[in-house]
């Protein structure tokens, strides 16, 4: 329900406060890591925090990340709302990317229909890939976590193989396809940057997911299944259908993300390992956004900034980009935790932990 009440604002405020606190703690740890490893920590840290705004080009990079993070965040939010832990967005991205590329490289790619057709193909491919673990769970009770992870690896290997053996220009020895025709590449909104149609698609997807979840019968059923599957069953809701359809729909958004990846101005072609593990960062976006679709782009905006800062830090300073994974992990851990305020209680908990650490060995005897 979207009808607001005072408690709703308080609730949102509390969530925002939690996220900001988590971010602050994570940045503090990042600062410590940078201090410990960098020859010029001040430059590294200021690059991390300010570089995305340094030029139109970097702003474009940031917005491009926001679009992609929004889509993966939406895909994870959908399955998490149904209390499913499908981790298959990465595989869906690869399948979506592959099919978008196939369309873009076909005769259709040179026509004005290239973008919509490629996206539709990518969404279908992603949907199929999202459906599989869902069906395996509903029909056979197979853990969707394990099966979706396996499908990720299979998708990456298969797509990499197809690129190497079939799609890359023959004899070039490259692990990337030729550039798509301009008609198949998302138009730039600010020319010369990566600020392209992707962000519009991502925002449209946000509204679609919000509408589906909060204004349709299907969405209410999905949320009820997520709250309590036994209750849903008792109420006459076919929870396995809802579960599978949620995973399928999330898959189509994963596939769409694949299309945005390969057709975006950043690539415009299909390359091996193109997602750079970004698909999994949707977990962070979804958790911080509490699986609320409207919060997803906001979180993506903030997190995308940090991510881009880290990329630029890796390029411009001696601190590798991958340092950011420390920040990611800390944010997930803290936001997923049920801490309230970082006051006495939080510190008390930290102290409590050291107590258990000292008394715990008794249990191991």
């Amino acid at each position, binding site marked *: 329900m979207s009808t607001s009440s005072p408690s709703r604002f308080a609730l949102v405020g509390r969530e925002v406060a939690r996220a900001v606190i988590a971010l602050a703690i994570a940045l503090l740890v990042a600062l410590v890591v940078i201090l410990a490893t960098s020859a010029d920590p001040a430059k590294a840290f200021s690059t991390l925090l300010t570089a995305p705004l340094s030029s139109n080009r970097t702003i474009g990079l940031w917005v491009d990340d926001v679009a992609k993070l929004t889509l993966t965040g939406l895909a994870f939010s959908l399955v998490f709302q149904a209390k499913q832990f499908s981790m298959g967005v990465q595989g869906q991205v690869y399948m979506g990317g592959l099919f978008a590329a196939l369309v873009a490289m076909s005769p259709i790619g040179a026509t004005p229909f290239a973008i919509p057709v490629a996206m539709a193909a990518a969404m279908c491919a992603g949907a199929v890939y999202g459906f599989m673990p869902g069906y395996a769970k509903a029909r056979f009770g197979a853990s969707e976590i394990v099966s979706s992870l396996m499908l990720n690896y299979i998708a990456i290997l298969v797509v990499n193989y197809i690129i190497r053996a079939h799609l890359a220009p023959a004899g070039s020895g490259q692990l990337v396809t030729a550039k798509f025709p301009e008609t198949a590449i998302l138009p730039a909104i600010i020319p010369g940057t990566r600020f392209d149609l992707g962000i519009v698609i991502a925002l449209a997807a946000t509204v679609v997911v919000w509408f589906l979840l909060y204004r349709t019968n299907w969405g209410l059923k999905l949320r009820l299944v997520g709250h309590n599957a036994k*209750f849903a069953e*008792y109420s*006459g809701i076919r929870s396995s259908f809802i579960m599978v359809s949620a995973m399928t729909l999330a898959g189509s958004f994963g596939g769409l993300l694949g299309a945005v990846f390969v057709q975006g101005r950043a690539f415009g072609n299909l390359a091996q390992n193109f997602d750079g593990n970004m698909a999994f960062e949707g977990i962070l976006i979804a958790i911080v956004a509490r699986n609320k679709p409207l919060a997803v782009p906001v979180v993506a905006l903030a997190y995308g900034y940090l991510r881009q800062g880290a990329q630029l830090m890796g390029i411009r300073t001696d601190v590798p980009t991958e340092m950011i994974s420390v920040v990611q992990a800390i944010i997930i851990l803290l936001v997923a935790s049920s801490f309230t305020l970082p006051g006495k209680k939080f510190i008390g908990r930290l102290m409590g932990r050291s107590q258990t650490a000292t008394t715990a060995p008794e249990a191991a005897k």
Partner: protein
Amino acid sequence: MAPLLEAISIGKTYPGGTVANDGVNLTIQAGEVHAVVGENGAGKSTLMKILFGIEQHDRGELRLDGKPIRFANPREAIDNGIGMVFQHFSLVPSFSVYENVVLGSEPRNGIKFDRQKAIADVRALSEKFRLAVDPLPPVGQLPVGQQQRVEILKALYRDARILILDEPTAVLAPQEVEELFVAVRALVAQGRTVIFIAHKLPEVLEISDRITVMRAGKTVGSVNARDVTEDSLATMMVGREIALRVDRAGARGPLACEVKNLKIDAENGSTIAKDLSLKVHAGEILGLVGVEGNGQAELLETIAGLRPAADGVIALDGADLNDLSVLQRRQLGVASIPEDRIARGLATGASIAENLVATRLSDKRFVRNGLLDLKAIKANALALIEQFSVRAGGPNVAVGTLSGGNMQKIVVARELSEQPKLLLVNQPTRGVDLGATQFIWKSLTKARDGGAAVLLSSADLSELLALSDRLVVFYRGKIVAAFVNSDDLTAETLGTYMLGLNTQDPETMRAALQ
């Protein structure tokens, strides 16, 4: 000599602000059976949790052997010779009896778990205290009465001097209660002390030496069992004369639901119940009697469509329900109030409004073309909150924030907001206070008077006897007896059938089954 265990003006306020105990005094002498009685919500359970270290008191003092004491956790209580048997057993189903008994205090041989000694110890204990139970089978396969013995053995194995039994008779048939009392007397004879939590007064008077009465978080007083009567105790408990009276049905209507030769299988393929045949008419309440686990709950689930029928027919107004989904059955007028409201009856994280329409998402009033009519959903919630006097902040509040009684009202409101044709009810008043009980009973009889055929299952025989027009008794997955309710029918009579001690001749049964 100081009393064995003493609680002096104990107070406990839960984080939510609920004052569960407020100035509770309890004095337990060594070697007595001491009953603590009171209505649901009187604070008995909280007091026992404090005595056993699950909760800690905020105010007042506990004394053991005259010395002040405070238990941070159950381990400390156990180490001080206090044992507790919960109403919901704490047994690992796949573990054998002896493994459950010794769990946490296993006999060891080096680092090895000394199974032979454990088995021998459990055998010796069960002989000593006349709690016959085979140590070897997994507890999940034992009947409830035996599981309870395992729980008692568990406490005795830890050398409990004081044994707290929390509503031990609630899950037992009358004859099993007798066996339990034999064991309790054996315990006391061997120098142990028993604290007995209960609300069934005849049992309390039979077994206990002293009785402490609690009401609304306070102790009202302590009396000697032989100095009081049931009536005076009841007055102490509720502070007023109680009369939970129910009007029986008038003339019953036409046949509504018929179950014929129904067979129900468990998911692992074993048979739970078979040859179930019964009829319920519009405007009557049919009580399903039986020790829990004899197939009553499964029958209700099968009729609701939550379990497949392995064989047989379920018909409502002549239409076969077997191939219909839960939703289709609901559309035909089946409503159900499930046993566990939190596990099955509600989505506690969703709002009141959403919970109230969850069963009616194909209703044109709330959903059109796949889209929700939020206005209608909200209006529905406001109306039902008003009608069932649910105490809540508003329709968008999460159900999980409500009290137990109000949660149950949400379930009842949803299921009875439209007059059902067939109402399935399981344990409607478990864990709710007297006020809510009265309200729920009234709602059930109202639905009945509106023409619903009601199937009611309850562990509380007095509830069944109060509400039912006819009763059928389940034993080991079969209907073994049927009665038309009358003032002559007693819990004891039902009990002999519940335990399979007595069989009814087919003619009498057939007559009462019609």
